């Protein structure tokens, strides 16, 4: 399996945060047995990735996290003159 960093390239990177906007991910509880005219797996469970996370125009949450050098970073500390780019990836470890 590829390390999830396949995306990384030279380029400006920064983090961002939204203030307080929690996105409720709706996920139907997996019901026992799709039988008896129940919904298909797809209907029950389909996640719409266009709706997860902060939407265009919304603010990103605040955060305070350590980076790879041990420095604490926040939205403000990472912000560049033109804004920020934030990439969420799965893992650098597998």
């Amino acid at each position, binding site marked *: *399996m*590829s*390390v*999830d960093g*396949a*995306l*990384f390239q030279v*380029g*400006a*990177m*920064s*983090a*961002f*945060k*939204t*203030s307080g*906007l929690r*996105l*409720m*991910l709706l*996920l139907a509880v*997996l019901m026992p047995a*799709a039988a008896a005219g129940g919904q*298909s797996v*797809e209907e029950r*469970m389909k*996640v719409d*990735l*266009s709706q*997860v*996370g*902060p*939407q*265009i125009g*919304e*603010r*990103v*949450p605040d*955060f305070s*996290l*350590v*980076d*790879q*050098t*041990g420095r604490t*970073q926040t939205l403000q500390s*990472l912000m560049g003159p*033109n*804004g*920020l*780019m*934030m*990439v*969420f*990836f*799965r*893992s*650098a*470890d*597998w």
Partner: protein
Amino acid sequence: MSYDSQETLAAFSTQNGITFPVLSDVGSATIERFGILNTVALEYLENDSDDPEFIAYVRQFATVGGRQERVRGIPFPGTFMVDREGRVTSRYFEDYYRERSTVSNIMLRLGAGEDTVTGTQIESDHLDITTYPSDGTVALGNRFALVVDITPGPGMHVYAPGASDYRVISLTVEPQPFLSVLPIDFPPSEIYYFAPLNERVPVYQKPFRLLQEVVPAVTPEAQKAFAGKDNLTIVGTLEYQACDDAICYNPVTVPLTWTVALRPFLRPEPRQ
């Protein structure tokens, strides 16, 4: 940002020459506050089902591996662009977790691209054309762009989508196995008023750019097909019809080629 420890990210950054900050969100609290915690992965862990539809769903959104604890806390992977007020200005998420837009592709789509890859110049009678890929090297699953930069010659315009009765500009990529070709978003055109016929048609007169996004597949079949291949060549054609303010020329077909190097997946180095 990932859920990895600082130590893991330090090693990863060193191995890959990464100098920009990579944030450690151990426990995934920030990932969760962003609302992008991968809930399909959690479902997979909580639920023993091997229903084929469920598994296909898991393979698309969460993992092609087994029920491993390490998928707990991963995000849906994606990229946000944020302005100085902290507001999202654009976002890039793919339905298949193993497909991902490259940074260069995102930059080009935002109009902020740099010409980092040497292009091919083509001069036709009516246009100057430069073609290049957004990335010189890609991995399977990378969503990248084939760029066609076009400068109409002096006094020339070419017909843009919506111009009836003329051959509108089109870019066609020759199909090949394991290559997804995405629909093109043509840039905005201008209206040209041709007095002798009293007609108004959408055209491109100023330099413009076409971005054709493609994704080489990353499925096991695709990986087998690409095994041992160092590069990927993509062939296409550009069709257009150009006019100056007196006459219209015959439609033209221009063959185009892009070649990118293929690199293998990055693998973490074994830990001591």
